């Protein structure tokens, strides 16, 4: 009953009054100590001398730790054990933590951390993918290659062949709340850690290793984050571990919060890619084959780079049935921040690759870019409604009469059986009035020299599930108290996406009660163990199902008991309208709970869920890595100024598939926020390092995220009216990441606008900053 309602975020009342607590807001005991890292000032080299006397004598300093002072493991990596908390004699990027200051205040720690005198024997730093490739500096033994058919042969025999190479920049998460952690020593040497993390279990694991205790001695709690976006999947490890070590050593509560500059200098960002492509097309616009090379800048440590780079490969087809494809992915090790998870997890970069191919091909073939895309879409499943309300089509159906049926399998051999994009596209093109606006824009552009407008459509097909199959599991813990109130805990973390509200809606609907009976508490490793990161958009899919399982266990016990009391079969017990009906009798939920309690029925249960049907071999690149796909499409219109490169988004229309949405208001919020963040990535958000590997854009003064005034003038967002064909929680679909990639339409619209300055193809890089647009517009106008 409570499912699928546009209810506000569960903590909205606390947020609007400033009472919602983040890690930095938790009251701490007197004498709490504050931490800061001393950072490497060079990109690569050996530390030859480290004079910390000035640091130690700085006012308020209690202790200074280096790698040698660490009692147990010196590692904060989520994967390979290749990321020391404090540098072990060697440094690998500007900003790498070298020593740790423990002081009486945040400021005292930061001031002291700047007072070290460190001498280095500098070595040559690899600051670009070219340098890393030349030095064969990489993760894994060689490139990963996935393929289907013989792409080279297919391309060679094509009517048109296009090729190009372009850059896709990284992206700073800029979660508004920076990284933060707080450790409180417990009796017995145990540790209670509050960490702003998407992955409490990993924090627990790393802290336990670092203080030499089993995981049971460490409890990690997180009520909420002020934004995560992937940046708090592994990047919080260093702070939590540092706090725990310092707390163990001093016996005091220890807190660490990165200053924004430190945060941007130390932590990883979205992976930057260079994508080269060669693609073949038939005269009619059908793609014959494509070959991609991804040069992935992974930074200095492995972190999550392998699955990120894999996911980029897995999204190199996006919405298109490509008969022959080859993707070669080089995971390069450079001397920059270690790139990490970021909303979409490589998917966006892979998708930008194929969307660029489509855009380029449409220009060369002189076919409308939407038409070209439609001709290459995967076929719709047999039961999809045909356009114009005709009878359902049988099997997967070709779009045009002249078209053959497509091979509907992805490059990794998974059949696409839930392809919703034909319908989504048809609806969106109509609601956005695409065709007419595109014509109007051509006319308008013909009359205007300095300003040009552009419009573009782009689709999204995004695979849902962790590609590391074992991560697709979740647990929940539910208690019903004797007064009929319900306490709910699950392994997911809240970072603003509304996960807690969604799972509470699930719990309320299982018990047929009002939502205000359900209390959701902080994520806690002592309540639900061995959780996966809240990532891969999987939060509500996994945790919603686990909560449902736990609730159903309790509900079934209650039904059995009440049935017995009223001499009715359990099946005659119905939970509805905040009451329980047993055949003719109706009682309140409180009464039911109290009766079960006095009847000695257990009112507490755990629930567990694992995603079915997955089967994936990441080395071969074959199998079924995803449970299902989420879809969406966007049309964006922009305007650019040739003389300055300035540009604006004028209008955006989005139709997004959230299945049968659990909470349309929260989902639309996700779509809007994700689109703006995606468009930011491809337009204004530019990371710049100087020749010595120093990040120059380490504050919002130089790194430009979208502001309120940058939002599209007209912004129409709707959810597609559908439901998940797979058996997910109430047939909903994951919504955290997929709409991020709708932002690609903004980049393509800029390409269209810039293209209007001349006859050539603009060859835009990403981000298409004002500078990039100006440069490309000049070139195009000069006919280059």
């Amino acid at each position, binding site marked *: 009953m409570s499912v699928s309602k546009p209810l506000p975020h569960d903590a909205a009342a606390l*947020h609007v009054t400033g009472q919602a607590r983040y890690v930095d807001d938790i009251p701490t005991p007197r004498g709490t100590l504050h931490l800061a890292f001393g950072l490497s000032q060079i990109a690569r080299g050996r530390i030859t001398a480290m004079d910390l006397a000035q640091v130690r004598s700085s006012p308020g300093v209690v202790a200074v730790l280096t790698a040698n002072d660490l009692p147990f493991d010196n590692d904060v990596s989520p994967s390979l054990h290749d990321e020391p908390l404090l540098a072990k004699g060697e440094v690998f990027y500007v900003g790498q933590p070298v020593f740790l200051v423990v002081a009486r205040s945040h400021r005292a720690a930061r001031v002291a951390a700047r007072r070290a005198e460190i001498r280095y024997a500098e070595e040559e730093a690899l600051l670009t993918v070219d340098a890393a490739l030349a030095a064969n500096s990489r993760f894994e033994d060689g490139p990963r290659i996935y393929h289907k058919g013989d792409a080279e042969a297919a391309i060679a025999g094509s009517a048109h062949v296009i090729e190009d190479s372009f850059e896709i920049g990284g992206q700073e998460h800029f979660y*508004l*709340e920076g990284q933060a952690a707080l450790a409180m020593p417990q009796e017995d040497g145990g540790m209670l850690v509050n960490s702003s993390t998407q992955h409490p279990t990993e924090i627990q694991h790393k802290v336990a290793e670092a203080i030499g205790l089993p995981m049971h001695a460490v409890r990690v709690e997180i009520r909420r984050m002020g934004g995560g976006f992937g940046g708090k999947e592994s990047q919080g490890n260093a702070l939590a571990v540092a706090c725990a070590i310092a707390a163990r050593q001093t016996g005091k509560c220890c807190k660490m919060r990165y200053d924004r500059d430190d945060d941007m200098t130390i932590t990883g960002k979205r992976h930057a890619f260079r994508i080269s492509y060669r693609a073949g097309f038939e005269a009619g616009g059908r793609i014959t084959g494509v070959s991609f090379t991804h040069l992935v800048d992974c930074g200095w440590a492995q972190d999550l780079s392998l699955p990120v780079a894999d996911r980029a490969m897995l999204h190199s087809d996006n919405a298109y049935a490509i008969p022959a494809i080859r993707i070669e992915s080089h995971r390069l090790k450079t001397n920059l921040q270690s790139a990490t998870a970021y909303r979409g997890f490589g998917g966006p970069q892979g998708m930008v690759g194929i969307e660029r191919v489509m855009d380029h091909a449409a220009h060369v073939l002189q076919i409308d870019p939407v038409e070209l895309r439609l001709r290459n879409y995967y076929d719709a499943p047999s039961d999809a409604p045909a356009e114009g309300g005709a009878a359902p089509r049988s099997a997967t159906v070709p779009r045009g009469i002249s078209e053959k049926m497509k091979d509907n399998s992805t490059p990794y051999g998974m059949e696409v059986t839930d392809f919703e994009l034909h319908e989504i596209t048809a609806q969106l093109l109509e609601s956005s009035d695409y065709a007419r606006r595109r014509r109007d824009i051509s006319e308008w552009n013909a009359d205007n020299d300095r300003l040009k407008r552009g419009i573009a459509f782009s689709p999204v097909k995004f695979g849902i599930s962790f590609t590391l199959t074992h991560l697709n599991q979740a647990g929940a813990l539910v208690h019903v108290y004797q007064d009929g109130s319900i306490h709910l805990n699950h392994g997911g973390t809240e970072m603003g996406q509304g996960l807690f509200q969604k799972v509470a809606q699930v719990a309320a609907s299982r018990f047929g009660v009002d939502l205000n009976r359900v209390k959701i508490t902080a994520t806690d490793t002592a309540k639900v163990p061995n959780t996966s990161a809240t990532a891969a958009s999987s939060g509500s899919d996994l945790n919603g199902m686990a909560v449902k399982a736990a609730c159903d266990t309790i509900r079934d016990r209650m039904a059995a008991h009440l049935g017995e009391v009223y001499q009715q079969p359990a099946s005659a017990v119905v939970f509805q309208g905040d009451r329980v009906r047993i055949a003719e009798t109706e009682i309140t939920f409180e009464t039911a709970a109290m009766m079960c309690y006095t009847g000695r029925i257990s009112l507490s249960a755990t629930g567990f869920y694992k995603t079915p049907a997955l089967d994936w071999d990441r080395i071969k690149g074959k199998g079924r890595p995803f449970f299902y796909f989420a879809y969406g499409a966007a049309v964006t219109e922009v305007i650019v100024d040739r003389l300055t490169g300035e540009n604006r988004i004028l209008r955006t229309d989005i139709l997004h598939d959230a299945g049968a949405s659990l909470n349309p*208001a929260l989902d639309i919020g996700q779509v*809007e926020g994700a689109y703006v963040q995606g468009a930011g990535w491809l337009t204004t958000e530019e990371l710049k390092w100087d020749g010595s590997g120093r990040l120059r854009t380490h504050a919002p003064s130089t790194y430009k995220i979208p502001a*309120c005034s940058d939002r599209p003038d007209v912004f129409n967002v709707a959810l597609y009216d559908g439901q998940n064909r797979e058996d997910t929680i109430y047939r909903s679909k994951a919504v955290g990441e997929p709409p991020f990639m709708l932002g690609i339409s903004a980049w393509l619209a800029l390409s269209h606008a810039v293209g209007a300055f001349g006859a050539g193809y603009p060859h835009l890089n990403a981000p298409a900053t004002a500078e990039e647009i100006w440069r490309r517009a000049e070139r195009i106008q000069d006919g280059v």
Partner: protein
Amino acid sequence: MSTKMHIKLTVNGKNEEFLAEPRELLIYTLRERLNITGPHIGCETSHCGACTVTIGGKSVKACTMFVAQANGAEITTIEGIGSPDDLHPLQTAFKEHHGLQCGYCTPGMITRATKLLEENPDPTEEEIRFGMAGNLCRCTGYQNIVKSIKAAAAEMNAAKEAAE
């Protein structure tokens, strides 16, 4: 170490007196000394607006003001705007119109918006967008923030008319 200074502030109607280093930043005074944690720290360089408070009728970013500069001032933070049982129309609107996700920007946003609506009680969407440009939000894409402010303005204007 600089000498401490005698500071007097009125925060959300309450008088506060203490000794502080003049260079103490106001955001730390509020958060650490006075336990007023609604204003958040987002950037500490006056770019994000998470720390926005009202001082003497103006929106101020508390991260870049010394406590000495605020000496004698009347300060309003999000805590002084309303409470969960007694929400300001802007607070109600942000809650009902989903003007927040992670909520970290929300106290600063609402505090800024109270001033915006004082300066301009019936703003156009354009005026809202530029009036709020100093407050960043990484989650919402701003659509619902603008909607919330519009709704609150309508609500407040209707209440004013009814009162007249």
